[in-house]
């Protein structure tokens, strides 16, 4: 604000990159939605699993990745490139970097579209892409970051508008989440094992997965809302003050909420409570942001009738409000016991993806295209029609998924009055009951896709009427010395920061110091608070000045935002990740996979079985009655990656091992309906002819050993021989059961793995604690105090 215009200059914005990203978003959006409709059809008509590369388990990741990273990603980049240049009053810093960013991102998408159907996957949701693509994503994201921050550094507007804050938070948080969650050790050019296993992997994955929603699908789109909605209605945002509260509260709270994806599981309870607690707190900022968006329309509500762009924006913001109401609701443990693993979650995410992201994208594209091509929208009537069929499509989709999820959840959890038996013991019975709802989903999705294609046609006609234009604008060049002058010293060594950290340190000391010292720390905290208030009263202007300076200095602002998002992750992840291995787990310990079982497990991951099957029996009576004893932490400590799953289109498999003979699995994989009448699972005939990968076993076991899995020292020949010996044994057992399989086929390896599920070793101490004939209680039962008492008085 202290800058003095030194001169004026004419700048031409880089709108070519905006156009490219917009066109890419439309193209990939259509592909992603088409894949969505196709896999919805597959769930109803299993015959549509036409080939191994077209099976549900491989296409579902293609759908989710295409929609998130290709459709919304490109849309986000279009919005960011357009608005950031205008808000900075500067062209993007480097055309070269813009080009690298655009083409690099499209190559990544193509690579994903090729590798996922081939079954090349890391086996974690929204983090399926193989490691070379992960490296490419990190590099291209870095290119985007450099280009963006470089533009901020050479801007001609001293103040950073709130939309830019959201973009900054997006760039640094996505980089942090993506890199940490994709840490892996390669075993080949197309395969790797994640650094984390079991509960660690689950926590890191959902810290990433949840915040991918928060910082890839929400914060950048909120930035777009804060820029484009005021432009569309030609009014400033309703409350800039509210936008400040919205930003900081979202950034601070969102990052903590990941564990709500793991409620009632083996995740430590304090983390579950943390996730639930912070999810509930998200209600306030999310609705603050929604109201800020809606009320921006004050005095211009008539535009809602006449302007399709405003219609899309307002409907999108309303869906944002609805989704962010539903999210915390689903994070309440009791509600989650019903909703988790069901279609309710699918309905929730589609309200967000189709309603919030999809409609925002449509509003953005309808607004941008005429400006970028110097023409008028080809047909307002088509746009209005698009709006209505999209809205109706979403409502049909979401409502059917709500009904489906709640109905199946209630059926799966229903027990008799005594709580001793399930009312619907056959899983398929519950699946058949939701078939009609799954049919309605196809109708809803098809309507939405039809509207999207109509938009593409409308925009194409609009483009043809005009020609690409580059907007030029005369701007005042600001004095370089007047902005971005705040150094690290000035940022951190000042009263507001010092008193906040001192207060925090003393509160921590109060919590953790021994009696006596804790009271002293509390008294000191009170004393510091009084001094802080006094200082604030004396130097209010100085404190405000610090904050105002922050808003004009992108680097300290970015550092503080990073501190905010990193804090939440560190407190959750460090205690869980820094722990060692089996020696620290006193409960059950997973048995190490044999080479053949490991090969089978890699096939399970490759086929995407986790898309429909969980491996986590929750600490809930219906789960225990249906699937067996609840899952313990130690039962997946060697699982790289964990396969707890997030959806049960089929039953949980955590204790599948030994439940059925080999021949049952043989028949089930060949034709699932031969063993489970009414199943919608694909058939896997290729498993009976394709050979399992023997060559890479040595490298895979070496990597597993490096990751801490206690394999004995084995030579390549020993590994191969061990795998073949077990395979021959299974093939002979199959033969005895009337089935024929060559020992080196994939089906044999997969059976070996499936029969291993749920096998664990029990430490001696636990056997002493558990009397014969007494089932394990549903609450974790081995607190230290209890353990000590028992071990001292056996």
């Amino acid at each position: 604000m202290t800058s003095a215009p030194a001169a004026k200059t004419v700048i031409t914005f880089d709108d070519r990159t905006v156009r490219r990203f917009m066109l890419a978003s439309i193209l990939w959006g259509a592909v992603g939605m088409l894949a969505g409709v196709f896999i919805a059809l597959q769930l109803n008509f299993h015959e549509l699993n036409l080939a191994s590369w077209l099976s549900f388990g491989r296409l579902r990741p293609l759908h989710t990745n295409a929609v998130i990273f290709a459709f919304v990603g490109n849309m986000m980049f279009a919005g960011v490139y357009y608005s950031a240049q205008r808000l900075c009053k500067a062209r993007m810093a480097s055309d070269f970097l813009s080009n690298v960013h655009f083409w690099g991102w499209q190559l990544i998408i193509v690579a994903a579209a090729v590798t996922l159907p081939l079954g090349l996957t890391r086996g974690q949701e929204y983090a399926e892409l193989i490691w070379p693509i992960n490296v490419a994503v990190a590099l291209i994201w870095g290119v985007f970051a450099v280009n963006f921050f470089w533009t901020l550094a050479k801007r001609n507007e001293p103040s950073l508008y709130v939309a830019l804050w959201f973009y900054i938070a997006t760039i640094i948080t996505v980089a942090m989440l993506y890199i940490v969650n994709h840490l892996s050790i390669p075993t080949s050019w197309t395969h790797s094992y994640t650094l984390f296993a079991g509960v660690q992997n689950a926590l890191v994955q959902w810290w990433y997965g949840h915040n991918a929603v928060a910082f890839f699908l929400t914060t950048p789109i909120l930035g777009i809302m804060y820029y484009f909605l005021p432009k569309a209605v030609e009014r400033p945002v309703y409350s800039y003050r509210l936008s400040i509260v919205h930003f900081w509260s979202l950034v601070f709270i969102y990052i903590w909420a990941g564990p709500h994806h793991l409620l009632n599981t083996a995740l430590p309870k304090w983390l579950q409570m943390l996730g639930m607690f912070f999810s509930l707190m998200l209600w306030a900022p999310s609705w603050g942001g929604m109201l800020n968006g809606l009320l921006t329309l004050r005095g211009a509500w008539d535009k809602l009738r006449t302007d399709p762009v405003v219609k899309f924006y307002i409907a999108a913001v309303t869906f944002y409000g609805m989704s962010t109401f539903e999210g915390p609701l689903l994070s309440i443990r009791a509600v989650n016991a019903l909703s988790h693993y069901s279609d309710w979650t699918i309905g929730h995410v589609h309200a967000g993806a189709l309603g919030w992201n999809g409609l925002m994208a449509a509003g953005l594209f309808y607004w941008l295209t005429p400006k970028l091509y110097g023409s008028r929208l080809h047909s307002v009537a088509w746009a209005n029609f698009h709006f209505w069929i999209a809205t109706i499509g979403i409502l049909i989709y979401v409502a059917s998924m709500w009904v489906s999820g709640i109905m199946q959840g209630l059926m799966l959890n229903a027990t008799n009055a005594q709580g001793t038996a399930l009312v619907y013991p056959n899983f398929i019975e519950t699946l058949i009951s939701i078939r009609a709802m799954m049919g309605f989903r196809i109708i809803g999705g098809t309507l939405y896709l039809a509207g999207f294609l109509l938009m593409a046609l409308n925009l194409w006609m609009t483009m043809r009427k005009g020609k690409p234009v580059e907007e030029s604008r005369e701007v005042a060049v600001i004095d370089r010395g007047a902005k971005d002058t705040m150094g690290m010293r000035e940022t951190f060594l000042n009263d507001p920061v010092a008193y906040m950290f001192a207060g925090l340190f003393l509160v921590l000391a109060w919590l953790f110091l021994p009696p006596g010292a804790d009271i002293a720390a509390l008294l000191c905290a009170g004393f510091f608070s009084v001094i802080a208030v006094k200082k604030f009263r004396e130097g209010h202007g100085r404190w405000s000045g610090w904050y105002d300076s922050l808003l004009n200095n992108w680097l300290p602002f970015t550092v503080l935002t990073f501190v905010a998002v990193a804090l939440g992750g560190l407190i959750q992840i460090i205690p869980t990740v820094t722990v060692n291995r089996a020696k620290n787990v006193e409960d059950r310990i997973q048995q190490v996979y044999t080479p053949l079982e490991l090969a089978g497990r890699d096939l399970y991951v490759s086929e995407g079985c986790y898309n429909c099957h969980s491996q986590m029996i929750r600490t809930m009576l219906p789960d225990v009655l249906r699937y067996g004893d609840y899952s313990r932490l130690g039962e997946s400590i060697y699982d790289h990656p964990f396969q707890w799953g997030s959806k049960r289109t089929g039953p949980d498999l955590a204790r599948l091992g030994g439940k059925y003979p080999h021949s049952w699995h043989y028949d089930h994989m060949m034709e699932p309906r031969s063993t489970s009448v009414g199943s919608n699972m694909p058939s896997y005939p290729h498993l009976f002819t394709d050979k399992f990968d023997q060559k890479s076993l040595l490298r895979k076991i070496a990597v597993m050993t490096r990751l801490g899995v206690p394999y004995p020292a084995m030579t390549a020949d020993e590994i191969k021989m061990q795998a073949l010996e077990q395979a021959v044994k299974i093939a002979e057992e199959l033969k005895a059961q009337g089935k024929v399989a060559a020992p080196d086929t994939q089906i044999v390896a997969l059976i070996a793995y499936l029969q291993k599920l749920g096998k664990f070793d029990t430490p001696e101490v636990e056997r002493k604690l558990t009397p014969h004939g007494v089932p394990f209680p549903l609450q974790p039962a081995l607190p230290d105090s209890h353990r000590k008492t028992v071990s001292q008085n056996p």
Partner: protein
Amino acid sequence: MYKRVLYENWADWVPYLAFGVTALVFLSFVVRAFTLRRERADHMARLPLEEE
């Protein structure tokens, strides 16, 4: 360490601590937002609408 993370009492305090940290930061920004000068807020809100 693992068992302590799982079972011991200090872990129960983490949610409260987390809430405290967040509430502290949140409140400080609420105070800051609502003490923002009106003309400054208006200027910031109008940034997207400035054509020059």
